[in-house]
């Protein structure tokens, strides 16, 4: 990165009492959740200006996808938000399905919901763990969250072959059927997750340090959140009822009974609680999906993986990924690769309000405000 944009040397340094200090936090900093830099201008300990600098992890994702075939882009989408590969797959195949008009068999829809909600579970658990680590609880909550995540990743490995880079969904269905006994294992993991959440909440919810550090910190007003295009738990923590699972009802989400938790203040604590409550709702969805899943085909017989050439046209498929609205916008010119391939990454767009949330807070709060947004730099920089 040449010449960090937007930051000039503090102009008026009239007296020692008004000396401003410019600090570059990152790109290699334990609190920045990836290679991400924040140029922070401080007055004492108070933040007066903050400029996010990103792009360190830019991998040319969109242009690579415009050169490769439609099938070959699926493994690349795993690497966008590398924690939640399943939901990335889903958003991409959803837009290709819209482009080509493929139908998805019932069983595949159920499998998709199950793996997506499992992804949401461990994403939110890890976020809570990381957030607590940023607050100084080194290790314990994060390791508890990772212990549960490992069980879900084992499920993913036995289903797809890989723990994190699943590369599982295909246009019109899924790549392979569930292995024998997978549903029972998943039910065990889901049952165990419920009691894990009880313990996790006992460990953390009433904790004075958590409350003191997070309540009233980093308030995101609902109006600003809507104007900035913030989506996901961050938006709902500000009290805006917008969940794409309810709004679009993509897939088969209209069949499940679940509620959308809403926050009141939009501070870091609300964003933390939003994750805990959403995990409870995800468990409800998982319980219903694991119970109702039918037998049948897992891929549309008309689905064509190789040499896919959709008719000229455009499609935008979006899902509620654990981080917010993840969308893929595809334009086809009838060729074997998309003419234009655009990702709408929730992490990047949620990051744009970082400065507004941080102004006036101490630099130690910047760390937890960033942690509460839930970003993954693979998705921010693409």
């Amino acid at each position, binding site marked *: 990165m040449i010449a960090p944009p937007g930051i000039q040397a503090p102009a008026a340094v009239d007296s020692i009492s008004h000396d401003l200090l410019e600090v570059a936090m990152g790109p290699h900093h334990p609190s920045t959740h990836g290679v991400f830099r924040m140029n922070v201008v401080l007055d004492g300990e108070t933040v007066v200006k903050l400029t996010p600098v990103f792009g360190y992890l830019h991998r040319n994702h969109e242009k690579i996808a415009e050169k*490769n*075939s439609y*099938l*070959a*882009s*699926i*493994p*690349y989408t*795993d*690497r966008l938000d590398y924690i939640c590969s399943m939901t990335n797959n889903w958003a991409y195949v959803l837009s290709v399905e819209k482009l080509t008009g493929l139908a998805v068999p019932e069983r595949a829809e159920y499998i998709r919901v199950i793996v997506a909600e499992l992804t949401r579970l461990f994403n939110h658990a890890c976020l809570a763990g990381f957030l607590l680590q940023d607050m100084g609880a080194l290790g*314990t909550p994060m390791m*508890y969250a990772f*212990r549960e995540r*490992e069980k879900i990743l*084992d499920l993913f*490995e*036995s*289903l*797809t*072959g*890989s723990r994190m*880079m699943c*590369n599982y969904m295909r246009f019109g269905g899924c*790549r*392979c059927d569930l*292995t024998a006994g997978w549903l029972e294992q998943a039910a065990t993991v889901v049952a165990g997750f419920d009691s894990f959440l009880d*313990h996790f909440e*006992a*460990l*953390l*919810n*009433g*904790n*004075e*340090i*958590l*409350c003191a550090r997070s309540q009233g910190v980093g308030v995101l007003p609902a109006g600003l959140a809507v104007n900035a295009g913030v989506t996901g738990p961050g938006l709902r923590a500000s009290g805006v009822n917008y969940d794409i699972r309810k709004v679009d009802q993509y897939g088969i989400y209209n069949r499940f009974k679940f509620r959308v938790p809403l926050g009141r203040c939009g501070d870091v604590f609300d964003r933390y609680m939003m994750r805990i409550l959403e995990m409870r709702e995800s468990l409800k969805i998982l319980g219903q999906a694991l119970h109702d899943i039918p037998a049948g085909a897992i891929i549309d017989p008309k689905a064509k*993986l*190789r040499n896919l050439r959709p008719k000229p046209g455009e499609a935008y498929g979006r899902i509620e990924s654990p981080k917010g609205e993840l969308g893929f916008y595809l334009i086809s010119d009838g060729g074997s690769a998309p003419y234009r391939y655009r990702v709408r990454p929730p992490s990047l767009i949620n990051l744009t309000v970082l400065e507004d949330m941080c102004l006036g807070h101490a630099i130690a709060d910047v760390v937890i405000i960033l942690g509460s947004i839930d970003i993954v730099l693979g998705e921010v920089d693409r």
Partner: protein
Amino acid sequence: MLGLGILRGLVETWRNFQGSYYDPARLTTVQYPEEKLPPQENARTFPFLVFDGNEPLAGLRCTACSICAVECPAHCIHIVKDTLKKPDYLGKMQFHPKVFNIDMAVCMECGICAEVCPFDSIKMDHVFELSGVDRKMILEKTDLAKPNDYFHKIHPLEAATVDAARAAEQRKAQAKKAAAPVPAAV
């Protein structure tokens, strides 16, 4: 009361710590490398080439059709066709690869090559301890060729399905041959 929440949390931590002495299920890690978990059957790392029979290069199932090289998202497969054709398991004359290289530094283990291969030739391996002392990152077909028995060992279910399908095709081809004894022109 101030501090009650912290105390409650510490009790939770203490219970987990104590429990790990009495309940083996609470010990979630293993002592790698002394102790290793068995890999899951579906697990995948790098691709390898399956061969039938005893001779690795003669028995390769690969017909150098280059579908995997075209579909590979990272374009890490390099294939050069041989000029000679050899009969395959159905008695059909097929090309063979003169060069079949996979750049392991580029491969991202997605498994698309194994998925698109119409000859069940390229499959995903289970090996993962691959660090070495040299810089040999491009594997040639001699390094990649592994016997069908190995495929059976690591992916028993999938290998059984593949073998059954191939045997059925073979029977069909033989029946056809017996019906029309004149061999098809090459």
